């Protein structure tokens, strides 16, 4: 895969892809799930978000991929203040974000190939303009032989790699993953991690929420640690084992 031109452009123009300024979030009238978060991600960086279940990892990701709004504070993504962007521009922002979920969220009525092609079709591209790209991407994640398969017939690791392929097919500027290795074995976790690392090497900013400490330790990347909705620690990169 070639280097992501959008990510490269973002990297050259701004000192951050994402910035949280005093961000808090609550669901309805409930207690705050996230409290006073302040951090920023540089273009091309690779971060893990760790924390116990309920610490707010998924909520933080929801704020970034525009599935939720903060109750307080400002979020800047790609230099845009998310609190003021009009609703009709949100899909354009979302197209610059790739999201991978623990439960895959594949469309069961589509083949693996269709699932990966989905963001490109939504973006309005003609099939002939991306047919080969999708095939190459499926080969990249090791699913060339399964491109005609329906998701229900795929193993957990295959589903997750398919979800990753769908998340990156648009060459996103930022790739978010919510417990991407939660449903796969250790070997597959490492394989999936390698895909994220490769995407990062191509210029995509990567942010992975996980409680898999072994995965974090192996990667040696920066870690944002959440506890009770607060950012309690920001660990610098560690030497990789």
């Amino acid at each position, binding site marked *: 895969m070639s280097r992501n031109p959008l990510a490269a452009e973002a990297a050259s123009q701004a000192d951050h892809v994402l910035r949280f300024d005093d961000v808090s979030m609550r669901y309805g009238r409930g207690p705050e799930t996230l409290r006073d978060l302040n951090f920023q991600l540089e273009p091309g960086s690779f971060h893990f978000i760790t924390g116990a279940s309920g610490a707010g990892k998924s909520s933080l990701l929801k704020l970034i*991929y525009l*599935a939720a709004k903060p109750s307080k504070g400002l979020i800047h993504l790609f230099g845009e203040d998310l609190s003021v962007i009009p*609703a*009709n521009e*949100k*899909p*354009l922002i*979302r*197209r610059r974000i790739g*999201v991978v979920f623990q439960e895959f*969220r*594949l*469309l*069961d*009525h*589509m*083949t693996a*190939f*269709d699932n990966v*092609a*989905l*963001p490109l*079709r*939504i*973006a309005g591209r003609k*099939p002939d303009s991306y*047919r*080969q790209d*999708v*095939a190459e991407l499926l080969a990249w994640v090791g699913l*060339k*032989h399964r*491109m*005609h398969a329906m998701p229900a017939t795929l193993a957990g690791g295959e589903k997750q790699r398919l979800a990753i392929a*769908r998340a990156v097919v*648009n060459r996103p500027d930022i790739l978010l993953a919510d417990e991407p290795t939660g449903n796969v074995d250790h070997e597959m976790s490492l394989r999936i991690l390698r895909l994220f690392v490769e995407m990062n090497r191509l210029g995509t900013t990567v942010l992975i929420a996980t409680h898999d400490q072994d995965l974090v330790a192996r990667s040696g990347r920066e870690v944002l640690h959440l506890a009770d909705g607060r950012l309690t620690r920001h660990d610098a990169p560690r030497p990789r084992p």
Partner: protein
Amino acid sequence: MSEADAFVARWRPASFLPAADTRDGSLTFVVAVLCFLACLTALGVIASDRAARGWSDQLTRQATIIVRPKANETPDSAAARAAETLAGVKGVSEARALEKEKAEALVAPWLGDISDLDDLPVPRLVAVDLDPKAPATAADLDAALKAQGVDGVVDDHTIWTADIARSAGLVRWFGGAVFGLIAAAAGAVVAFATRAGLQARRDVVEVLHLSGADDHFIARLFQVRFARMAAVAGLFGAAGAAIIGAGLRLAGGEGGLTPVLPIIWTDLLAVAPCPLFAALVAAVAARLTAEGLIRDMA
């Protein structure tokens, strides 16, 4: 070429939404029934309107004169003189005096058989056929009778034609109201189905959102799906109503099954726009519902 390459070469994009399921089949049936009822209503209104216009035309093309004989003439001669006078009036095609028996038959429902009561002064009647293009008015006929010294009362059936026109108007309004209700019911059913469909496919909507689809894009998917479904349902409903209409026409010959509902072949064309109309109602209902619900989901 490998199997994978062959697959890529012949790949065609799948539908964004899952294929129709049993719920959609039930919805198609309900909308088809509603379309069938709407088409039958339309055919009924058209036939009623034609019947009313037919009766009205018949009545306005005729007038009846009640002739009272003067002291120096017999009822028969008075009626004959009136018929002769009226035959010459402009706008009258034909005037004929009715026989005594016909006059007695007309009063029989009230007086019974009076044929043996020679002394009872039963008024004679003159039936007048008016020129359909330029019919004479009641005033014309009355003036002509007065000019010839004939004592007669002109009945141009105005009271009946007004009643028929009022009845026909009521039938039209009633038919329109029923048609509107059925259309509203179809819209409500589609809106309900859209809501249920969106809720059932919430996961699909979320994935489409995350993949960069905007609300309009997703709403349009549901709009197209339900419009197509309604068009198919409308086709079945219209075909069913057309078959019933054709059956009535065939069973009844020229005048339809009954003179009350005379159906002609071209009436069946009235059901032709049904699929289009059903699709339009469904498209509007689905779009409005989907837009609102997707906004809420987001």
